[in-house]
Protein backbone atom coordinates (compact mmCIF):
# COMPACT_ATOMS: atom_id res chain seq x y z
CA UNK A 1 0.00 0.00 0.00
CA UNK A 2 2.90 2.28 0.69
CA UNK A 3 4.06 3.03 -2.84
CA UNK A 4 0.84 4.57 -4.07
CA UNK A 5 0.67 8.33 -4.36
CA UNK A 6 -2.73 9.79 -3.81
CA UNK A 7 -3.92 13.01 -5.30
CA UNK A 8 -6.51 14.49 -3.03
CA UNK A 9 -8.59 17.57 -3.50
CA UNK A 10 -9.08 18.66 0.06
CA UNK A 11 -12.24 20.27 1.23
CA UNK A 12 -11.58 23.18 3.57
CA UNK A 13 -11.40 22.08 7.19
CA UNK A 14 -13.57 24.94 8.32
CA UNK A 15 -16.51 26.37 6.45
CA UNK A 16 -15.89 29.82 5.06
CA UNK A 17 -17.45 32.68 6.99
CA UNK A 18 -17.90 35.95 5.09
CA UNK A 19 -15.96 38.79 6.66
CA UNK A 20 -19.01 40.93 7.36
CA UNK A 21 -20.74 38.07 9.17
CA UNK A 22 -17.93 37.92 11.74
CA UNK A 23 -19.04 40.84 13.92
CA UNK A 24 -22.12 42.56 15.27
CA UNK A 25 -23.79 45.66 13.81
CA UNK A 26 -23.17 49.01 15.52
CA UNK A 27 -26.62 49.19 17.16
CA UNK A 28 -26.40 45.73 18.70
CA UNK A 29 -22.83 46.37 19.85
CA UNK A 30 -23.89 49.49 21.77
CA UNK A 31 -26.77 47.66 23.47
CA UNK A 32 -24.51 44.76 24.50
CA UNK A 33 -21.85 47.15 25.77
CA UNK A 34 -24.41 49.08 27.86
CA UNK A 35 -25.69 45.82 29.33
CA UNK A 36 -22.15 44.74 30.23
CA UNK A 37 -21.54 48.12 31.89
CA UNK A 38 -24.78 48.35 33.87
CA UNK A 39 -25.58 44.80 34.99
CA UNK A 40 -22.83 44.44 37.67
CA UNK A 41 -24.12 47.50 39.53
CA UNK A 42 -27.25 45.54 40.41
CA UNK A 43 -25.62 42.14 40.97
CA UNK A 44 -24.21 40.34 44.00
CA UNK A 45 -20.49 39.73 44.34
CA UNK A 46 -20.72 36.08 43.32
CA UNK A 47 -22.66 36.95 40.17
CA UNK A 48 -20.07 39.62 39.38
CA UNK A 49 -17.34 37.00 39.77
CA UNK A 50 -19.19 34.72 37.35
CA UNK A 51 -19.53 37.58 34.87
CA UNK A 52 -15.79 38.19 35.13
CA UNK A 53 -15.26 34.50 34.47
CA UNK A 54 -17.55 34.80 31.45
CA UNK A 55 -15.46 37.66 30.10
CA UNK A 56 -12.03 36.05 30.39
CA UNK A 57 -13.19 32.65 29.14
CA UNK A 58 -14.93 34.48 26.32
CA UNK A 59 -11.59 36.08 25.55
CA UNK A 60 -9.91 32.67 25.40
CA UNK A 61 -12.62 31.37 23.08
CA UNK A 62 -12.19 34.49 20.95
CA UNK A 63 -8.50 33.71 20.62
CA UNK A 64 -9.26 30.22 19.38
CA UNK A 65 -11.85 31.71 17.04
CA UNK A 66 -9.23 33.91 15.41
CA UNK A 67 -7.05 30.85 14.85
CA UNK A 68 -9.77 28.49 13.61
CA UNK A 69 -12.44 30.77 12.20
CA UNK A 70 -9.84 33.17 10.82
CA UNK A 71 -6.96 31.06 9.55
CA UNK A 72 -8.58 27.62 9.50
CA UNK A 73 -6.12 25.92 11.88
CA UNK A 74 -7.18 23.74 14.78
CA UNK A 75 -5.98 23.76 18.29
CA UNK A 76 -6.83 21.45 21.15
CA UNK A 77 -3.88 22.90 23.04
CA UNK A 78 -5.18 26.30 24.08
CA UNK A 79 -5.11 25.26 27.73
CA UNK A 80 -1.30 25.18 27.50
CA UNK A 81 -1.04 28.84 26.47
CA UNK A 82 -3.75 29.75 28.97
CA UNK A 83 -1.74 28.02 31.70
CA UNK A 84 1.51 29.70 30.68
CA UNK A 85 -0.19 33.10 30.75
CA UNK A 86 -1.72 32.41 34.15
CA UNK A 87 1.62 31.23 35.58
CA UNK A 88 3.59 34.15 34.20
CA UNK A 89 1.11 36.58 35.75
CA UNK A 90 1.01 34.75 39.07
CA UNK A 91 4.78 34.38 39.36
CA UNK A 92 5.43 38.00 38.46
CA UNK A 93 2.81 39.26 40.90
CA UNK A 94 3.75 37.06 43.83
CA UNK A 95 7.49 36.43 43.48
CA UNK A 96 8.56 39.76 41.99
CA UNK A 97 5.81 42.07 43.30
CA UNK A 98 5.05 43.58 39.93
CA UNK A 99 1.61 45.28 39.69
CA UNK A 100 -1.00 43.14 37.95
CA UNK A 101 -1.72 45.51 35.06
CA UNK A 102 1.91 45.32 34.00
CA UNK A 103 1.94 41.51 34.20
CA UNK A 104 -0.78 41.02 31.63
CA UNK A 105 1.03 42.58 28.66
CA UNK A 106 4.16 40.59 29.55
CA UNK A 107 2.09 37.39 29.68
CA UNK A 108 0.57 38.30 26.32
CA UNK A 109 3.91 38.99 24.65
CA UNK A 110 5.62 35.89 26.07
CA UNK A 111 2.71 33.67 25.05
CA UNK A 112 2.80 35.23 21.60
CA UNK A 113 6.43 34.14 21.43
CA UNK A 114 5.69 30.60 22.61
CA UNK A 115 2.75 30.33 20.22
CA UNK A 116 4.82 31.64 17.34
CA UNK A 117 7.55 29.09 18.06
CA UNK A 118 5.06 26.24 18.41
CA UNK A 119 3.53 27.43 15.17
CA UNK A 120 6.80 26.60 13.36
CA UNK A 121 6.37 22.81 13.47
CA UNK A 122 2.60 23.24 13.31
CA UNK A 123 3.14 24.89 9.94
CA UNK A 124 3.66 21.60 8.28
CA UNK A 125 0.53 20.11 9.74
CA UNK A 126 -3.06 20.60 8.88
CA UNK A 127 -6.43 19.38 10.02
CA UNK A 128 -6.31 16.25 12.13
CA UNK A 129 -2.52 16.24 12.50
CA UNK A 130 -2.55 19.71 13.97
CA UNK A 131 -5.37 18.76 16.33
CA UNK A 132 -3.21 15.82 17.40
CA UNK A 133 -0.01 17.82 17.99
CA UNK A 134 -1.84 20.45 20.02
CA UNK A 135 -3.73 17.72 21.89
CA UNK A 136 -0.39 16.26 22.95
CA UNK A 137 0.83 19.73 23.98
CA UNK A 138 -2.20 20.16 26.22
CA UNK A 139 -1.76 16.77 27.92
CA UNK A 140 1.94 17.43 28.51
CA UNK A 141 1.54 20.93 29.97
CA UNK A 142 0.52 20.07 33.56
CA UNK A 143 3.59 17.82 33.87
CA UNK A 144 5.85 20.54 32.52
CA UNK A 145 4.45 23.01 35.06
CA UNK A 146 5.24 20.55 37.86
CA UNK A 147 8.93 20.34 36.88
CA UNK A 148 11.31 20.32 39.82
CA UNK A 149 13.72 23.02 38.78
CA UNK A 150 10.85 25.47 38.26
CA UNK A 151 9.43 24.78 41.70
CA UNK A 152 11.23 27.74 43.25
CA UNK A 153 8.92 30.05 41.31
CA UNK A 154 5.86 27.99 40.50
CA UNK A 155 5.35 26.24 43.82
CA UNK A 156 5.29 22.83 42.10
CA UNK A 157 2.22 20.67 42.57
CA UNK A 158 0.92 22.99 45.31
CA UNK A 159 0.47 25.93 42.98
CA UNK A 160 0.54 29.60 43.89
CA UNK A 161 -1.91 31.83 45.72
CA UNK A 162 -2.44 35.23 44.12
CA UNK A 163 -3.64 38.31 46.02
CA UNK A 164 -6.67 40.04 44.62
CA UNK A 165 -6.00 43.71 43.73
CA UNK A 166 -7.95 46.56 45.40
CA UNK A 167 -9.74 49.26 43.45
CA UNK A 168 -7.28 52.10 42.78
CA UNK A 169 -7.65 55.89 43.24
CA UNK A 170 -9.71 55.39 46.43
CA UNK A 171 -12.74 54.25 44.40
CA UNK A 172 -15.50 52.87 46.62
CA UNK A 173 -15.87 49.58 44.82
CA UNK A 174 -15.67 45.97 45.94
CA UNK A 175 -12.61 44.05 44.70
CA UNK A 176 -14.86 41.87 42.55
CA UNK A 177 -16.53 44.83 40.90
CA UNK A 178 -13.20 46.57 40.19
CA UNK A 179 -11.81 43.39 38.70
CA UNK A 180 -14.91 43.04 36.53
CA UNK A 181 -14.53 46.50 35.03
CA UNK A 182 -10.78 46.03 34.63
CA UNK A 183 -11.42 42.74 32.78
CA UNK A 184 -14.13 44.38 30.69
CA UNK A 185 -11.74 47.10 29.53
CA UNK A 186 -9.03 44.58 28.62
CA UNK A 187 -11.50 42.31 26.82
CA UNK A 188 -13.06 45.20 24.89
CA UNK A 189 -9.66 46.48 23.80
CA UNK A 190 -8.66 43.03 22.55
CA UNK A 191 -12.04 42.52 20.88
CA UNK A 192 -11.68 45.77 18.93
CA UNK A 193 -8.10 44.81 18.04
CA UNK A 194 -9.27 41.41 16.78
CA UNK A 195 -12.09 42.82 14.69
CA UNK A 196 -9.67 45.23 13.07
CA UNK A 197 -7.06 42.52 12.64
CA UNK A 198 -9.49 40.35 10.70
CA UNK A 199 -10.50 43.30 8.53
CA UNK A 200 -6.90 44.19 7.76
CA UNK A 201 -4.53 42.88 5.12
CA UNK A 202 -3.36 40.19 7.55
CA UNK A 203 -6.94 39.16 8.25
CA UNK A 204 -7.62 38.73 4.54
CA UNK A 205 -4.46 36.64 4.28
CA UNK A 206 -5.69 34.43 7.16
CA UNK A 207 -8.99 33.87 5.41
CA UNK A 208 -7.40 33.15 2.07
CA UNK A 209 -5.30 30.46 3.76
CA UNK A 210 -8.38 29.08 5.49
CA UNK A 211 -10.33 28.78 2.27
CA UNK A 212 -7.57 27.33 0.13
CA UNK A 213 -3.97 27.21 1.17
CA UNK A 214 -2.49 26.40 -2.21
CA UNK A 215 -4.52 29.03 -4.01
CA UNK A 216 -3.52 31.57 -1.36
CA UNK A 217 0.18 30.86 -1.81
CA UNK A 218 -0.24 31.07 -5.58
CA UNK A 219 -1.67 34.56 -5.09
CA UNK A 220 1.42 35.63 -3.19
CA UNK A 221 0.30 35.18 0.42
CA UNK A 222 3.25 34.19 2.62
CA UNK A 223 1.53 31.10 3.99
CA UNK A 224 4.24 30.18 6.48
CA UNK A 225 4.39 33.65 8.00
CA UNK A 226 0.65 34.15 8.34
CA UNK A 227 -0.03 30.69 9.73
CA UNK A 228 2.55 31.12 12.50
CA UNK A 229 1.34 34.68 13.04
CA UNK A 230 -2.22 33.45 13.58
CA UNK A 231 -0.88 30.90 16.05
CA UNK A 232 1.11 33.58 17.87
CA UNK A 233 -1.74 36.09 18.08
CA UNK A 234 -4.11 33.42 19.29
CA UNK A 235 -1.64 32.21 21.92
CA UNK A 236 -0.93 35.76 23.05
CA UNK A 237 -4.60 36.58 23.59
CA UNK A 238 -5.12 33.24 25.34
CA UNK A 239 -2.19 34.10 27.60
CA UNK A 240 -3.82 37.39 28.60
CA UNK A 241 -7.06 35.51 29.29
CA UNK A 242 -5.12 33.06 31.45
CA UNK A 243 -3.50 35.95 33.32
CA UNK A 244 -6.90 37.50 34.02
CA UNK A 245 -8.13 34.14 35.27
CA UNK A 246 -5.19 33.85 37.66
CA UNK A 247 -6.03 37.25 39.16
CA UNK A 248 -9.75 36.51 39.38
CA UNK A 249 -9.49 32.99 40.80
CA UNK A 250 -6.56 34.03 43.06
CA UNK A 251 -4.89 30.68 42.55
CA UNK A 252 -2.91 28.78 39.93
CA UNK A 253 -2.07 25.07 40.01
CA UNK A 254 -0.79 22.74 37.27
CA UNK A 255 -3.95 20.66 37.29
CA UNK A 256 -6.22 23.60 36.45
CA UNK A 257 -4.74 23.63 32.95
CA UNK A 258 -5.44 20.12 31.72
CA UNK A 259 -6.77 18.94 28.39
CA UNK A 260 -10.29 19.34 29.82
CA UNK A 261 -9.90 23.11 29.72
CA UNK A 262 -8.69 22.99 26.11
CA UNK A 263 -11.66 20.84 25.17
CA UNK A 264 -14.03 23.23 26.92
CA UNK A 265 -12.61 26.17 24.97
CA UNK A 266 -12.94 24.19 21.75
CA UNK A 267 -16.57 23.39 22.56
CA UNK A 268 -17.21 27.01 23.43
CA UNK A 269 -16.06 27.95 19.95
CA UNK A 270 -18.23 25.33 18.25
CA UNK A 271 -21.29 26.34 20.27
CA UNK A 272 -20.71 30.06 19.73
CA UNK A 273 -20.25 29.60 16.01
CA UNK A 274 -16.88 29.20 14.35
CA UNK A 275 -15.66 32.49 12.97
CA UNK A 276 -18.33 34.62 14.65
CA UNK A 277 -16.41 36.68 17.21
CA UNK A 278 -19.34 37.83 19.41
CA UNK A 279 -20.38 34.17 19.68
CA UNK A 280 -17.31 33.63 21.87
CA UNK A 281 -19.16 35.09 24.87
CA UNK A 282 -22.14 32.82 24.22
CA UNK A 283 -19.78 29.87 23.92
CA UNK A 284 -18.14 30.85 27.21
CA UNK A 285 -21.58 31.02 28.84
CA UNK A 286 -22.23 27.49 27.54
CA UNK A 287 -19.06 26.08 29.10
CA UNK A 288 -19.63 27.86 32.43
CA UNK A 289 -23.34 27.26 32.95
CA UNK A 290 -24.27 24.11 31.02
CA UNK A 291 -22.19 21.71 33.17
CA UNK A 292 -24.14 23.09 36.16
CA UNK A 293 -27.43 22.47 34.38
CA UNK A 294 -26.24 19.01 33.37
CA UNK A 295 -25.38 18.27 36.99
CA UNK A 296 -28.86 19.48 37.95
CA UNK A 297 -30.43 16.96 35.56
CA UNK A 298 -28.35 14.03 36.78
CA UNK A 299 -25.42 14.22 39.13
CA UNK A 300 -23.54 11.08 38.08
CA UNK A 301 -24.25 11.52 34.41
CA UNK A 302 -23.25 15.17 34.03
CA UNK A 303 -20.58 14.31 31.45
CA UNK A 304 -23.05 12.28 29.43
CA UNK A 305 -25.68 15.02 29.51
CA UNK A 306 -23.00 17.48 28.40
CA UNK A 307 -22.06 15.20 25.50
CA UNK A 308 -25.67 14.73 24.43
CA UNK A 309 -26.24 18.48 24.48
CA UNK A 310 -23.15 18.91 22.32
CA UNK A 311 -24.44 16.37 19.80
CA UNK A 312 -27.75 18.25 19.71
CA UNK A 313 -25.89 21.47 18.93
CA UNK A 314 -23.91 19.81 16.13
CA UNK A 315 -27.02 18.31 14.53
CA UNK A 316 -29.55 21.08 15.01
CA UNK A 317 -27.44 24.25 14.73
CA UNK A 318 -24.11 23.26 13.16
CA UNK A 319 -23.11 26.93 12.93
CA UNK A 320 -23.79 27.48 16.61
CA UNK A 321 -25.09 30.70 18.04
CA UNK A 322 -24.39 32.53 14.77
CA UNK A 323 -27.07 30.47 13.08
CA UNK A 324 -29.54 31.25 15.87
CA UNK A 325 -28.74 34.95 15.58
CA UNK A 326 -29.26 34.91 11.81
CA UNK A 327 -32.56 33.05 12.15
CA UNK A 328 -33.68 35.56 14.77
CA UNK A 329 -32.77 38.43 12.49
CA UNK A 330 -34.70 36.96 9.56
CA UNK A 331 -37.69 36.36 11.81
CA UNK A 332 -37.59 39.96 13.04
CA UNK A 333 -37.39 41.41 9.55
CA UNK A 334 -40.33 39.25 8.45
CA UNK A 335 -42.36 40.59 11.38
CA UNK A 336 -41.49 44.12 10.38
CA UNK A 337 -42.69 43.55 6.81
CA UNK A 338 -46.10 42.25 7.85
Amino acid at each position, binding site marked *: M*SAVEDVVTEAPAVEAVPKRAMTLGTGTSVVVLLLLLVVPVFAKNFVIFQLTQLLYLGLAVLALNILTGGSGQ*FSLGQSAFYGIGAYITAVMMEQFNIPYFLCLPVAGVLCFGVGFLFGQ*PALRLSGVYLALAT*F*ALATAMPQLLKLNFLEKWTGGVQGLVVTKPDAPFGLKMSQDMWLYYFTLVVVLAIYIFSVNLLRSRSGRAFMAIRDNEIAASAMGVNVALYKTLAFGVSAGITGVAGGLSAIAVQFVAPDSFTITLAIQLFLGM*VVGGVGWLPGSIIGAAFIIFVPNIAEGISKGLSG*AVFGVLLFLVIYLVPHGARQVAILGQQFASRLRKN
Partner: protein
Amino acid sequence: MELFTNQVLAGIATGAIYACMALAVVMIYQAIDHLNFAQGEMAMFSTFISWQLMQWGLSYWVAFLITLVLSFVAGIAIERILFKPLAKAPVLTNVAGFIALFAIINSSAGLIWDFTIKQYPTPFGSAPFLGSQLISTHQAGMIGVTVLLLLGLYFFFQYTRIGLAMRAAASVPESARLVGINTSWMIALGWGMATAIGSIAGMLIAPVVFLEPNMMGGVLIYGFAAAVLGGLTSPFGAVVGGFLVGIFENLAGTYIPGVGNELKLPIALALIISVLVVKPAGLFGRHIVKRV
Protein backbone atom coordinates in the same frame (compact mmCIF):
# COMPACT_ATOMS: atom_id res chain seq x y z
CA MET B 1 25.24 -3.73 27.62
CA GLU B 2 23.08 -6.02 29.70
CA LEU B 3 21.16 -3.00 31.00
CA PHE B 4 20.59 -1.91 27.42
CA THR B 5 19.26 -5.31 26.29
CA ASN B 6 17.05 -5.54 29.32
CA GLN B 7 15.59 -2.09 28.72
CA VAL B 8 14.93 -2.91 25.08
CA LEU B 9 13.12 -6.10 26.10
CA ALA B 10 11.05 -4.27 28.67
CA GLY B 11 10.35 -1.62 26.04
CA ILE B 12 9.03 -4.22 23.63
CA ALA B 13 6.75 -5.48 26.38
CA THR B 14 5.21 -2.06 27.03
CA GLY B 15 5.32 -1.37 23.32
CA ALA B 16 2.82 -4.16 22.74
CA ILE B 17 0.20 -2.05 24.56
CA TYR B 18 0.82 0.92 22.33
CA ALA B 19 0.95 -1.25 19.24
CA CYS B 20 -2.55 -2.61 19.97
CA MET B 21 -3.96 0.84 20.50
CA ALA B 22 -2.19 2.26 17.46
CA LEU B 23 -3.65 -0.53 15.35
CA ALA B 24 -7.17 0.51 16.37
CA VAL B 25 -6.35 4.17 15.69
CA VAL B 26 -5.02 3.36 12.22
CA MET B 27 -8.02 1.16 11.38
CA ILE B 28 -10.45 4.00 11.94
CA TYR B 29 -8.18 6.50 10.24
CA GLN B 30 -8.13 4.28 7.17
CA ALA B 31 -11.91 4.11 7.11
CA ILE B 32 -12.90 7.70 7.81
CA ASP B 33 -9.75 9.86 7.56
CA HIS B 34 -10.23 11.13 11.11
CA LEU B 35 -8.48 10.38 14.37
CA ASN B 36 -11.04 9.16 16.85
CA PHE B 37 -10.36 10.88 20.16
CA ALA B 38 -12.95 8.63 21.82
CA GLN B 39 -11.13 5.45 20.78
CA GLY B 40 -9.55 4.92 24.18
CA GLU B 41 -12.85 5.38 25.97
CA MET B 42 -14.57 2.92 23.65
CA ALA B 43 -11.88 0.35 24.43
CA MET B 44 -12.28 1.05 28.14
CA PHE B 45 -16.04 0.50 27.95
CA SER B 46 -15.58 -2.81 26.11
CA THR B 47 -13.13 -3.93 28.77
CA PHE B 48 -15.67 -3.13 31.47
CA ILE B 49 -18.29 -5.19 29.62
CA SER B 50 -15.97 -8.21 29.56
CA TRP B 51 -15.20 -7.68 33.26
CA GLN B 52 -18.93 -7.60 34.00
CA LEU B 53 -19.46 -10.82 32.02
CA MET B 54 -16.73 -12.50 34.03
CA GLN B 55 -18.31 -11.25 37.26
CA TRP B 56 -21.46 -13.02 36.11
CA GLY B 57 -19.50 -16.25 36.02
CA LEU B 58 -18.46 -16.66 32.39
CA SER B 59 -14.96 -17.93 31.67
CA TYR B 60 -12.30 -15.57 30.28
CA TRP B 61 -12.40 -16.70 26.67
CA VAL B 62 -16.20 -16.80 26.45
CA ALA B 63 -16.36 -13.27 27.84
CA PHE B 64 -13.57 -12.27 25.44
CA LEU B 65 -15.50 -13.52 22.40
CA ILE B 66 -18.84 -12.05 23.48
CA THR B 67 -17.16 -8.68 24.11
CA LEU B 68 -15.51 -8.82 20.70
CA VAL B 69 -18.86 -9.36 18.96
CA LEU B 70 -20.64 -6.76 21.09
CA SER B 71 -17.92 -4.17 20.42
CA PHE B 72 -18.06 -4.85 16.69
CA VAL B 73 -21.83 -4.32 16.67
CA ALA B 74 -21.58 -1.27 18.92
CA GLY B 75 -18.95 0.30 16.67
CA ILE B 76 -21.21 -0.13 13.65
CA ALA B 77 -24.18 1.21 15.58
CA ILE B 78 -22.26 4.32 16.69
CA GLU B 79 -21.25 5.02 13.10
CA ARG B 80 -24.76 4.49 11.70
CA ILE B 81 -26.56 6.53 14.33
CA LEU B 82 -24.15 9.29 15.32
CA PHE B 83 -21.49 9.80 12.66
CA LYS B 84 -23.13 8.94 9.35
CA PRO B 85 -25.09 12.21 9.39
CA LEU B 86 -21.77 14.03 9.89
CA ALA B 87 -20.00 12.40 6.95
CA LYS B 88 -20.12 15.57 4.84
CA ALA B 89 -19.56 17.99 7.71
CA PRO B 90 -16.21 19.81 8.15
CA VAL B 91 -13.44 18.12 10.17
CA LEU B 92 -14.12 20.51 13.02
CA THR B 93 -17.66 19.23 13.53
CA ASN B 94 -16.40 15.67 13.55
CA VAL B 95 -13.79 16.44 16.18
CA ALA B 96 -16.52 18.02 18.33
CA GLY B 97 -18.56 14.84 17.84
CA PHE B 98 -15.66 12.65 19.02
CA ILE B 99 -15.25 14.80 22.10
CA ALA B 100 -18.95 14.53 22.87
CA LEU B 101 -18.72 10.75 22.51
CA PHE B 102 -15.69 10.75 24.83
CA ALA B 103 -17.64 12.62 27.52
CA ILE B 104 -20.70 10.39 27.19
CA ILE B 105 -18.80 7.10 27.41
CA ASN B 106 -16.48 8.18 30.21
CA SER B 107 -19.28 9.46 32.38
CA SER B 108 -21.58 6.47 31.74
CA ALA B 109 -18.79 4.02 32.66
CA GLY B 110 -18.18 6.01 35.83
CA LEU B 111 -21.86 5.82 36.71
CA ILE B 112 -22.30 2.10 35.97
CA TRP B 113 -19.05 0.74 37.40
CA ASP B 114 -17.84 3.71 39.54
CA PHE B 115 -14.30 5.04 39.67
CA THR B 116 -12.64 2.54 42.00
CA ILE B 117 -9.69 0.65 40.55
CA LYS B 118 -10.44 -2.99 39.71
CA GLN B 119 -8.20 -6.01 39.19
CA TYR B 120 -8.46 -7.60 35.77
CA PRO B 121 -7.49 -11.22 35.13
CA THR B 122 -5.01 -12.37 32.52
CA PRO B 123 -5.31 -15.64 30.60
CA PHE B 124 -1.55 -15.98 30.26
CA GLY B 125 -0.59 -15.88 33.92
CA SER B 126 2.04 -13.52 35.27
CA ALA B 127 5.01 -15.81 35.88
CA PRO B 128 8.38 -14.77 34.43
CA PHE B 129 8.56 -15.68 30.74
CA LEU B 130 11.30 -18.22 29.86
CA GLY B 131 13.08 -17.38 33.09
CA SER B 132 13.47 -13.71 32.20
CA GLN B 133 12.62 -11.29 35.00
CA LEU B 134 11.75 -8.54 32.57
CA ILE B 135 8.96 -10.04 30.53
CA SER B 136 6.08 -11.81 32.19
CA THR B 137 4.03 -14.44 30.40
CA HIS B 138 1.22 -11.92 30.14
CA GLN B 139 3.42 -9.47 28.30
CA ALA B 140 4.71 -12.22 26.03
CA GLY B 141 1.12 -13.22 25.35
CA MET B 142 0.29 -9.64 24.56
CA ILE B 143 3.09 -9.41 22.01
CA GLY B 144 1.90 -12.68 20.51
CA VAL B 145 -1.71 -11.51 20.22
CA THR B 146 -0.63 -8.22 18.63
CA VAL B 147 1.43 -10.01 16.01
CA LEU B 148 -1.40 -12.47 15.30
CA LEU B 149 -3.83 -9.58 14.98
CA LEU B 150 -1.55 -7.85 12.53
CA LEU B 151 -1.15 -11.01 10.44
CA GLY B 152 -4.92 -11.50 10.46
CA LEU B 153 -5.49 -7.95 9.28
CA TYR B 154 -2.85 -8.30 6.58
CA PHE B 155 -4.52 -11.39 5.15
CA PHE B 156 -7.94 -9.79 5.46
CA PHE B 157 -6.93 -6.68 3.53
CA GLN B 158 -4.74 -8.42 0.94
CA TYR B 159 -6.61 -11.61 0.15
CA THR B 160 -10.34 -11.15 0.76
CA ARG B 161 -12.85 -9.42 -1.48
CA ILE B 162 -14.27 -7.38 1.33
CA GLY B 163 -10.81 -6.27 2.45
CA LEU B 164 -10.08 -5.11 -1.07
CA ALA B 165 -13.42 -3.29 -1.18
CA MET B 166 -12.60 -1.54 2.09
CA ARG B 167 -9.23 -0.41 0.78
CA ALA B 168 -10.83 0.85 -2.41
CA ALA B 169 -13.53 2.74 -0.52
CA ALA B 170 -10.93 4.41 1.67
CA SER B 171 -8.51 5.50 -1.04
CA VAL B 172 -10.77 6.49 -3.95
CA PRO B 173 -14.41 6.64 -2.77
CA GLU B 174 -15.85 7.91 -6.09
CA SER B 175 -14.37 5.18 -8.26
CA ALA B 176 -15.18 2.57 -5.63
CA ARG B 177 -18.80 3.61 -5.75
CA LEU B 178 -18.79 3.37 -9.54
CA VAL B 179 -17.68 -0.26 -9.47
CA GLY B 180 -20.49 -1.10 -7.11
CA ILE B 181 -18.90 -0.98 -3.67
CA ASN B 182 -21.18 0.22 -0.92
CA THR B 183 -18.71 2.75 0.49
CA SER B 184 -21.02 3.90 3.26
CA TRP B 185 -21.18 0.37 4.72
CA MET B 186 -17.43 -0.06 4.31
CA ILE B 187 -17.00 2.90 6.66
CA ALA B 188 -19.37 1.32 9.17
CA LEU B 189 -17.40 -1.92 8.88
CA GLY B 190 -14.20 0.03 9.55
CA TRP B 191 -15.73 1.45 12.73
CA GLY B 192 -16.83 -2.02 13.82
CA MET B 193 -13.37 -3.51 13.26
CA ALA B 194 -11.62 -0.61 14.94
CA THR B 195 -13.86 -0.94 17.98
CA ALA B 196 -13.28 -4.69 18.13
CA ILE B 197 -9.49 -4.24 17.90
CA GLY B 198 -9.73 -1.51 20.52
CA SER B 199 -11.57 -3.92 22.82
CA ILE B 200 -8.80 -6.49 22.43
CA ALA B 201 -6.27 -3.79 23.27
CA GLY B 202 -8.31 -2.79 26.31
CA MET B 203 -8.62 -6.36 27.59
CA LEU B 204 -4.87 -6.95 27.18
CA ILE B 205 -3.88 -3.65 28.78
CA ALA B 206 -6.27 -3.87 31.75
CA PRO B 207 -4.17 -6.40 33.76
CA VAL B 208 -1.20 -4.01 33.49
CA VAL B 209 -2.76 -0.60 34.15
CA PHE B 210 -5.80 -1.87 36.13
CA LEU B 211 -9.39 -1.28 35.19
CA GLU B 212 -10.97 2.12 35.76
CA PRO B 213 -12.80 4.68 33.60
CA ASN B 214 -9.70 6.85 33.06
CA MET B 215 -7.30 3.99 32.35
CA MET B 216 -6.82 4.82 28.66
CA GLY B 217 -5.77 8.48 28.97
CA GLY B 218 -2.01 8.10 28.69
CA VAL B 219 -2.21 4.94 26.58
CA LEU B 220 -4.20 6.72 23.89
CA ILE B 221 -1.61 9.50 23.57
CA TYR B 222 1.12 6.89 23.18
CA GLY B 223 -1.10 5.02 20.74
CA PHE B 224 -1.40 8.21 18.70
CA ALA B 225 2.35 8.74 18.90
CA ALA B 226 2.93 5.17 17.70
CA ALA B 227 0.43 5.53 14.87
CA VAL B 228 2.01 8.79 13.75
CA LEU B 229 5.51 7.31 13.93
CA GLY B 230 4.57 4.27 11.87
CA GLY B 231 2.44 6.27 9.47
CA LEU B 232 -1.28 6.73 9.87
CA THR B 233 -2.03 4.85 6.68
CA SER B 234 -0.21 1.64 7.50
CA PRO B 235 -1.36 -1.02 10.02
CA PHE B 236 2.09 -2.63 9.85
CA GLY B 237 3.68 0.73 10.57
CA ALA B 238 1.38 1.20 13.56
CA VAL B 239 2.61 -2.02 15.17
CA VAL B 240 6.27 -1.28 14.47
CA GLY B 241 5.66 2.27 15.72
CA GLY B 242 4.12 0.91 18.91
CA PHE B 243 7.15 -1.26 19.70
CA LEU B 244 9.56 1.56 18.82
CA VAL B 245 7.71 4.01 21.05
CA GLY B 246 7.82 1.49 23.91
CA ILE B 247 11.57 0.97 23.48
CA PHE B 248 12.20 4.69 23.08
CA GLU B 249 10.24 5.47 26.22
CA ASN B 250 12.21 2.96 28.30
CA LEU B 251 15.60 3.98 26.96
CA ALA B 252 14.88 7.69 27.48
CA GLY B 253 13.84 6.91 31.05
CA THR B 254 17.11 5.04 31.67
CA TYR B 255 19.73 7.07 29.87
CA ILE B 256 18.54 10.68 29.81
CA PRO B 257 18.98 12.18 33.28
CA GLY B 258 15.93 13.87 34.76
CA VAL B 259 13.44 11.90 32.71
CA GLY B 260 11.41 9.89 35.16
CA ASN B 261 7.79 9.04 35.32
CA GLU B 262 6.76 12.69 35.47
CA LEU B 263 8.05 13.43 32.01
CA LYS B 264 6.43 10.49 30.23
CA LEU B 265 3.78 12.54 28.47
CA PRO B 266 6.09 15.37 27.39
CA ILE B 267 8.25 12.67 25.76
CA ALA B 268 5.27 11.44 23.77
CA LEU B 269 4.58 15.05 22.79
CA ALA B 270 8.15 15.64 21.68
CA LEU B 271 8.07 12.40 19.71
CA ILE B 272 4.81 13.23 17.93
CA ILE B 273 5.98 16.69 17.00
CA SER B 274 9.41 15.68 15.81
CA VAL B 275 8.01 12.87 13.66
CA LEU B 276 5.39 15.17 12.17
CA VAL B 277 8.04 17.75 11.40
CA VAL B 278 10.76 15.48 10.04
CA LYS B 279 8.71 12.83 8.32
CA PRO B 280 5.01 13.76 8.32
CA ALA B 281 3.92 10.58 6.56
CA GLY B 282 5.59 8.41 9.21
CA LEU B 283 7.95 5.52 8.59
CA PHE B 284 5.66 3.38 6.46
CA GLY B 285 2.88 5.78 5.50
CA ARG B 286 1.81 6.94 2.09
CA HIS B 287 2.72 10.42 1.00
CA ILE B 288 -0.35 12.41 0.10
CA VAL B 289 -0.16 15.06 -2.58
CA LYS B 290 -2.60 17.95 -2.55
CA ARG B 291 -3.98 19.92 -5.41
CA VAL B 292 -6.24 22.94 -5.71
